[in-house]
């Protein structure tokens, strides 16, 4: 099995260095709100340990088998436990005044408002949100928030992926468009979301197509899409351009049309580039949704909870941490979903790749010898 991975360096290598550029584009998101940034950092870290473990795109079909899956799940849980243990350990040995080196604060304070115990954060989930008789618990509120944010982010992700793929195809088709458009696509990601959100909601508010009126969540989805399309457009463009001159000439020797070349050569060749781009896009969509919720004041999502709970954070931070936890869970769920898409793409879309037929591989090696 390992030799298959070794034998296919071409799609994997570009795939692995791919995250570098789009990641930079996603920066404005976390920068605008410390809460979601922290939450998603956690979400992505865990995601890469568990859900997205299949690793390099074309290898998504590899490493099946329950033993392997169990081992991965165990590793993910172990990582989580380790983070919790480190948290509690620091809380035990840290100072309530934080740590300073040469007068510069480098370590956080360990008092309960800054670093509540993990169990108090979890216990807070069961407490009432506000002190009235009919109030829902924080846990229920967070779950509702996750559900809302997730749907809005997914709508944005789908729109972003569609736009990104279309843009990449147009850019791959027309060199002129690539030259003209690509700089603006990159520049688009440097526009601060905080400034964009109220504008979009302002334009959207005037929109009305037939009986369909612009909803508040559409603004949030649009901003999620605005972040999500970028890695897809850039990654997919590289993927579409990845076939070598020989392959392109081969299609030319068949007198294949541009569409046939796209269908038979460029699109399948782009799959290994698309998969990591999708993962980045998914994370960006969640970040975008949460930030947009915050800056447009959209009700119902995790972003709104973060705003609401941060009011009381100076006295009791556990509620805010619960909201952050919600953001992390939303991120994890989207990452998991993307893993499923990857599996489907690697298995079906571009033909079952070498996958798990190790017996064949062994047979081949014998024949070769």
């Amino acid at each position, binding site marked *: 099995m390992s030799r298959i991975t070794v034998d296919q360096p071409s799609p994997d290598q570009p795939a692995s260095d791919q995250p570098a550029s789009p990641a930079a584009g996603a920066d404005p998101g976390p920068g605008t709100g410390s809460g979601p940034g922290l939450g998603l950092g956690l979400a992505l870290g865990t995601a890469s340990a568990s859900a997205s473990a299949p690793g390099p795109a074309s290898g998504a079909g590899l490493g099946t088998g329950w033993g392997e899956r169990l081992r991965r799940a165990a590793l993910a849980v172990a990582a989580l436990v380790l983070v919790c243990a480190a948290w509690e350990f620091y809380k035990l040995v840290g100072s309530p005044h934080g740590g300073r080196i040469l007068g510069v604060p480098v370590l956080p304070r360990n008092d309960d408002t800054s670093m509540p115990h993990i169990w108090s954060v979890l216990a807070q989930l069961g407490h009432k949100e506000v002190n009235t008789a009919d109030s829902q618990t924080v846990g229920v509120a967070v779950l509702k928030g996750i559900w809302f944010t997730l749907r809005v982010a997914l709508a944005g992700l789908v729109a972003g992926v569609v736009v990104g793929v279309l843009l990449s195809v147009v850019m791959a088709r027309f060199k002129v468009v690539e030259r003209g458009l690509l700089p603006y696509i990159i520049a688009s990601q440097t526009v601060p979301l905080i400034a964009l959100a109220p504008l979009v909601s302002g334009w959207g508010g005037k929109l009305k197509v037939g009986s369909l009126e612009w909803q508040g969540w559409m603004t949030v989805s649009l901003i999620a899409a605005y972040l999500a399309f970028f890695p897809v457009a850039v990654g997919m463009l590289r993927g579409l351009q990845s076939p070598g001159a020989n392959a392109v000439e081969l299609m030319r020797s068949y007198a294949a049309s541009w569409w046939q070349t796209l269908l038979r050569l460029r699109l399948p060749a782009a799959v290994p580039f698309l998969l990591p781009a999708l993962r980045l896009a998914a994370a960006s969509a969640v970040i975008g949704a949460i930030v947009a919720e915050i800056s447009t004041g959209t009700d119902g999502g995790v972003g709104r909870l973060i705003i609401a709970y941060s009011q009381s954070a100076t006295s009791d931070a556990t509620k805010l941490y619960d909201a952050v936890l919600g953001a992390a869970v939303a991120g994890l769920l989207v990452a998991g979903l993307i893993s499923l898409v990857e599996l489907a793409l690697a298995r079906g879309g571009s033909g079952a790749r070498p996958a798990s037929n190790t017996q064949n591989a062994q047979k*081949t090696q014998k024949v070769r010898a």
Partner: protein
Amino acid sequence: MTSTPPQTDQAAAGQAAPEQVTAAPADGGGPAPAVEVRGVDKVFPVAGGGATVALTGIDLTVAPGEFVSLIGPSGCGKSTLLRLVADLVEPTRGAVRVFGEPARAARQSKRYGIAFQQAGLLEWRTVAGNVELPLQVHGVKKRERRERARELLELVGLGDFAGHWPAQLSGGMQQRVAIARALAERPPLLLLDEPFGALDEMTRERMQAELARIRLETSTTVILVTHSIPEAVFLSDRVAVMSPRPGRITEIIDVDVPGRVTAPGESGGGAGGAGVPAVSAVPAVEDAVGQAEDVREQAAFFEAVTAVREALRAGGGS
């Protein structure tokens, strides 16, 4: 064997096509030559204003069913010449005709199959899927494609590997798949650009024997670009020796090594290579390899090799 410069006599083996050696265009009569290159120059512009003359004054006529090798040092334009025939690049001056049609029309009507030094298999397709690619592009029905791919894989000795992935095959096997793919649409002309260049010597000789056999069975016209003298001599009816800067054909050498797999009797077939013989008619690979060794050990073989080598040296090649 006879080793003659193109201008002199025509003592080639009996079944050779008429006017195959002359640089002059074919003058009516028989079927159109498989490939006719007349007065072709190719100049590549260089960034910064200059230009590189890749080919100059190229005249070459290849008869249907003939096997011609282009040999020469790196940079002599032999690959460019092949790509001109394939209409992958256009001549700066002169004309290229394939089976009487301009090269572009010939490409569009799928008159040739091509294979490069890199097998260039699509890694997301199985071996059979790769062979089917050209058929799929041209809208051949699925069942027919399957059947044709199976046939071709038998032909190149990979019948058991249809469901494998390219990454599971050795370099030689991948190259055989590439040749099968080039033959998928029964093209009357096969263009090979150093197809065995990246293979080790043993695999290479084996592949040469197989190519000779395949060519015999499919009666395809072949143009082979190579930089291996023994390979050219072993496979070809004629070897066109090229020299660099500017690239031109300095000599065309007839090769006649007894016992070597030769061109099938041409029944004037412009539509050569119409069919692949039944699988049962395929001689065992071992036989072909054995025969090939006999051929390579003949004195005539060495004489032909020497003739090509001297022609290369005379042309200023390495």
